[in-house]
């Protein structure tokens, strides 16, 4: 009985491990996609949205805030020199994912990664 229980646990563990790996795989692919989309903003707004000055920092703004701003640029409600033209090139889904990415980052930039 106890042996059977162990076996069932192993099966369950194996199944959940596999599911996790499958999810992790698609999350990774998706996150590289989202990272590429978000990185398209970084040319002007700084790597990971940490501005070097003169442009808004995107990192650490809330997702709702970023989505609202982009939608207002799209509709023309928010006046801009350039963002009304660039915002129209991104779909609602892309804006949502990009906003979630920048919202997930801390407001302050972390220290540079250690080199090898």
């Amino acid at each position: 009985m106890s042996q059977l229980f162990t076996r069932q646990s192993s099966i369950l563990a194996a199944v959940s491990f596999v599911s996790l790996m499958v999810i992790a795989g698609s999350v990774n692919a998706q996150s590289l996609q989202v990272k590429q989309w978000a990185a398209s903003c970084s040319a002007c707004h700084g790597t990971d949205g940490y501005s070097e000055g003169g442009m808004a920092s995107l990192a650490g703004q809330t997702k709702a805030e970023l989505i609202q701003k982009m939608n207002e640029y799209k509709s023309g409600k928010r006046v801009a020199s350039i963002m009304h033209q660039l915002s129209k090139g991104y779909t609602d889904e892309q804006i949502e994912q990009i906003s979630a990415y920048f919202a997930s980052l801390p407001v302050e930039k972390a220290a540079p990664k250690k080199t090898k």
Partner: protein
Amino acid sequence: MQRREFIQLVGAGAAATTLVGCATTNIDAKGAKVLVIGGGYGGATAAKYVRKFSNYTADVTLIEPNQNFISCPLSNLVIGGSKKLEDITVSYEGLRKNHGVNLVRDSVVSIDVAKKQVRLAGGASLFYDRLIVSPGIDLTYDKLPGMLAPNAQNEVLHAWKAGEQTIGLRKQLESMKNGGVFAISIPLAPYRCPPGPYERACQVAEYFQKNKPKSKVLILDANDDVTSKPGLFKLAWSRRYAGIVEYRPKHSLTDVDVKGKTLKFEFNDDIKADVLNVLPPMRAGSIAVKTGLANMNGRWCEVDFLTFESKVAPNVHVLGDSIQIAPGMPKSGHMANQHGKTCAAAVVAILSGADVNQLPVYNNTCYSFVSSQDVVHVASVHQYDAAKKTMVTVPGSGGVSAAANPLEGEYAHAWARNIWADMLV
């Protein structure tokens, strides 16, 4: 029975994992070697972002002959006199210090695609798993015989690669007499930086207006019309620089009399000027031409826009000004920066067994200084079209400034600070 079931499940699990192609919870490029040739807007960005996107697990080496990066965007301000070369110069050191990119100060003389090796001018050979080639452009003088004479290219400058020639052209303008003529010749598109020649004409015109008011700027364009921001540039020439700038389209240059300071054209009269600035036809950087990567008429490199992998060389990616561009895609520094990140994401996906992004989306933003203060922009958004297998501009996106304005002058400088840091810090 139960045991068999367990084995079957594990078996199915292994198959599922293989299908997804990524068995770890984090992207891991497992120390794969990525070589990047060329530290301009495309290559420097790619080097940094392969490290970043791979969670610092790819081994990245940037091969670049120059000690520092010097920006082509904003270099017209050095020619106009409102900036110095040091203002547009950034060290490569940040890539090493902050991102662990190996810096090799050398240039590549050959690529062995079969052995996955590049040979350096210094003699060493380097192995790669993936090679990223971002060699910029070469200037071609073979159809301008006068420019092939000894020393001709030191007298008639292009200043289309920022550095010595930028300073050289500035000096020629400084020593020109008041009442002299500056003539700039523009090749047929595509060439690096579509609005660049027109911005340069504005910068020289402003310098003349303030310092040598009797002087003239002549723009001799092989194209049928101004190739970028035409309305905004023409307005600047007719209002700000009335009587100074003259624009002449359909002027296809056939030769240069260097000693006589004269430009010769296919259908138009010769033009003599005091300072000649010849932008000859351009093609992909010489290493791309020499190795056959420039498979489109020996000029530009055809790539798969999902990965930037060359259409003729496996494991070799090409980006920046040297590629055969997609419709509506300019050869600009900003665009090369976007290529760099998209290519980096794809290279990291391939090296770590993840799926390659099937929908790249990125943008172009290009500011042009019509004076030392006032700026106009052109912007566009580009996304992958799976049916056409190329990048297309997103309908309804993009546009130009309503008018030249100083606020965008501030943004242009902020753009430079941010993009240089995005590439190099």
